[in-house]
């Protein structure tokens, strides 16, 4: 199919890519820092850049812990960082990766519908999926590469009979297996495709069966090699929920319909559901079933709270934009059969206005919010102060949301962050952090400080939001000393010790 693209296609795809890259780079290059969660990835990339091997033991975690993660993305960025500066790689590369997504959606819709306008519509929609701006703008996430690759692999799967596509498919599956566990959606999509095709009485090609079999076994095997210990320690369900304590999991796995609507966009939801209905009950097209089954698979996993809704919505959003492109083509065909054909331009215009209202505006709004949630100067200054003015072996108390920042920027030990895999006392740690911030009793707090050898307490807007307090209740004790203050961000030093009299 790629060979069949004409000049017009290439111009449209180029334009889509450039628009998305420019928009995303505008946000990232005008922002000094990343989102707090990004600093985990930053630290892993830095480690690979320095030592050429992934970090397996986290020394900056009080009590130590074993790290398990899929390292492909971090290696890729680390290799690029040997050529260009790391800060540029971290800011630019993820945006370039994710900007390929509208191009891939364009190609997929163009292949299925054989229409420019539908492909362009799908491509534009994929350029402005709100959740992608909310989650993948400042996060340096492996998902920026995993999401386009998953959909590109599905495209390759459909056209496997072409020369060298089998080789590309193998490379893509291997890369995805080492990139992010969410690539399991690809396997679910393929297996779902098998089931839906069987139910619809469509005969699958031998090559399709072979690819499904291969990708399932390879993906399972690689995940098992990487995460075997986590499976053993936590069990399958708890592993899927990343061993998150309920206090954190309720926020991360919480699901709201309104949030889903805004995150994905109302237009792709409506058009996507229409397309599903149409292809499941009226028209048979096995290639569309690939995306339908992906939608079902992701939807079920999100509903069962086995996958973070944010990640699920990203995949769901892209699948629905593909289906929307197909639905758009169907709609235009139908329009030609009606008396509304003289108003075609007006109708198309109103659809695009809806697209702007339901997708472009929320995307920009989410991008602004994400920008505001990046690390801001007072907090960044506090972290730099900690790095320069505290002993290297110090343990810093911070809410789990800021754990990555402490270990990455301040380079000091933490009690907990948002990665709980292979942390046996994860819930206890989070509860202890909550108590240390919210308790009114200095003795209780000091007792817990002793437990984790805590020397410094970081109080920032994250603590303010999480605990609804303006300062720690015991800050005026003699043994607690405020050593840094800038706006809402404070650092306290604790010299308190409990002794038996």
């Amino acid at each position, binding site marked *: 199919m790629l060979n069949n693209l004409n000049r017009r296609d290439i111009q449209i795809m180029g334009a889509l890519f450039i628009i998305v890259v420019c928009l995303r780079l505008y946000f990232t290059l005008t922002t000094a820092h990343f989102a707090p969660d990004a600093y985990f990835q930053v630290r892993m990339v830095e480690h690979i850049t320095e030592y050429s091997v992934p970090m397996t033991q986290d020394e900056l975690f009080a009590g130590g812990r074993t790290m398990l993660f899929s390292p492909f993305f971090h290696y890729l960025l680390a290799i690029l960082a040997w050529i260009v500066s790391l800060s540029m790689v971290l800011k630019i590369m993820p945006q370039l990766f994710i900007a390929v997504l509208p191009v891939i959606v364009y190609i997929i819709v163009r292949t299925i519908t054989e229409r420019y306008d539908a492909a362009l519509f799908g491509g534009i929609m994929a350029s402005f999926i709100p959740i992608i701006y909310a989650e993948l703008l400042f996060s340096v996430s492996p998902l920026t590469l995993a999401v386009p690759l998953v959909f590109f692999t599905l495209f390759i799967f459909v056209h496997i009979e072409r020369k060298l596509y*089998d080789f590309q*498919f193998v490379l893509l599956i291997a890369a995805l297996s080492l990139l992010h566990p969410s690539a399991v959606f690809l396997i679910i999509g393929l297996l779902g495709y098998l089931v839906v095709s069987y139910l619809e009485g469509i005969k699958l090609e031998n*090559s399709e069966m072979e690819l499904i079999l291969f990708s399932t*076994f390879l993906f399972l*095997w690689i995940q*098992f090699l990487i995460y075997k210990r986590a*499976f*053993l320690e936590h*069990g399958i369900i708890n592993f899927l929920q990343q061993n998150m304590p309920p206090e954190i999991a309720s926020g991360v796995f919480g699901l709201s319909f309104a949030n889903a609507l805004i995150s994905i966009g109302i237009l792709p939801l409506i058009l996507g559901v229409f397309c599903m209905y149409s292809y499941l009950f009226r028209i048979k097209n096995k290639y569309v079933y690939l995306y339908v089954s992906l939608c079902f698979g992701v939807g079920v996993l999100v509903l069962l709270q086995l996958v973070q809704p944010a990640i699920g919505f990203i995949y769901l959003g892209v699948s629905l934009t593909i289906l929307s492109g197909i639905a758009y083509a169907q709609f235009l065909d139908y329009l030609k059969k009606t008396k509304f054909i003289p108003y075609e331009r007006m109708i198309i215009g109103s659809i695009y206005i809806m697209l702007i209202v339901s997708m472009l505006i929320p995307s920009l709004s989410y991008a602004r919010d994400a920008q505001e949630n990046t690390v801001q100067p007072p907090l960044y200054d506090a972290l730099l102060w900690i790095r320069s003015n505290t002993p290297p072996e110090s343990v810093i108390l911070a809410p789990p949301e800021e754990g990555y920042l402490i270990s990455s920027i301040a380079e000091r030990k933490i009690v907990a962050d948002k990665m709980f895999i292979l942390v046996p006392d994860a819930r206890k740690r989070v509860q202890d952090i909550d108590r240390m911030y919210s308790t009114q009793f200095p003795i209780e707090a000091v007792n817990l400080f002793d437990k984790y050898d805590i020397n410094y307490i970081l109080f920032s807007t994250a603590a303010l939001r999480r605990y609804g307090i303006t300062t720690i209740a015991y800050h005026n004790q003699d043994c607690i000393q405020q050593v840094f203050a800038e706006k809402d961000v404070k650092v306290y030093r604790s010299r308190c010790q409990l002794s038996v009299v």
Partner: protein
Amino acid sequence: MGIACAVFFGLLAWRTLIGNPQMPGIYSYVHLSGFSLSLSLRLILIAVSSATVGLVYRLLALKGSPRYQWFAGLIFIIAPSTIVLSALFSPYGVALLLIALSLNLVHTRLKSIALLPLIGMLWIDWVSLICSMIITGSYMLYVEKKCLLRTAPVFAGLAIAGIIKNLPYALEHAPKSLFLKEIFSDLGGLYGLGLFMSILAVIGIILSWPYKKKLVGAYASILAIVIMSIWSTIGLLYLSPIVTLFAAYALVYFWEREWNLPFIRFLTLAVIIYGILFSGIAVMNTIAEMPPSTEVIESVQWLKNHPFYSDDIVLSHPEKGFWIGYGATSFITYHDPAYNKKLNITQEIFASRDFKKTIQLLESNNISIIWIDSEMKNGQVWTSENEGLLYLFTDPRFLKVYDTNDIEIWRLK
């Protein structure tokens, strides 16, 4: 047979080379009383496992194509349960040998006494007896239905004999974890199945579905043994050979079918074979590093040979009970009829920092020796130096009588 011997001897060599020639496993030591830990005992285990492989291979030759025989034989050898039984001293290895012998006898002139070897199950447990009846029954259903009808009274007789003999449900009662974890060896189950082998077996069942009338016994036996395994994971040892057969069926199918993408065929088969091998090697690694160590056995032998302590009751973690029982008298083992009561006492003593109460508990239970290893000190019982009973060891009434290679034996004066 050659490959089987190589795998089983390889495991023995592996464990010996890393400096631990002792018999691995907790339950090995239940059945070891009266045996000395000699090399000949290990060789007998390997001989039993190799004989089982030989009999299974012979059976496959009777009923399958040479390729199927070859694949099924290899998968059976590398199956986690086969490897485990070749290394652990357990009656279940013999049980599988007897079942294989019984199935082989069906194809000989001695058909009428084919079920005779199953009498041996009456000295093991209900799980083994029922599983052996299920396997032989389903095999006879596969070979010749009339044969099954003739053997029904024998099965009834065996069941009655089991009731009269008051067989235990299972000989091994280690505290159970999540069934999902136990069912797959890759997730930590000692007697579990290989993950890839199980996936292949599911595919094998789907592929063999057109022959469902002929294979109904095999499907039913899988279902029955899986249900039994929920109550005792020993059942998984008997499930493994059946799973192996279906896994081999799927593998042969993938091998022989015409692939549109030869490149993908090669890679898929490579991934499947690596996956199966990986499970087997992971189990070999687990067994090679499995306790007890030489130091543990030496400390127990020291107690056994000591002129004053050889008859004393020794307190330790229940997991060490059978090892201690190999040379001395352990206060608690997993097989103890009063296990729960003794577990409470053990936990109370280990956690207590109250000297009077601890002494009272030790004396009232006639415990005079306490056996501790580094595992107990590092999380299994205690997490810090001065926790619970460890704090009380500073009192002069406790005397350390043995301290070698992280194993301490304390005596109450």
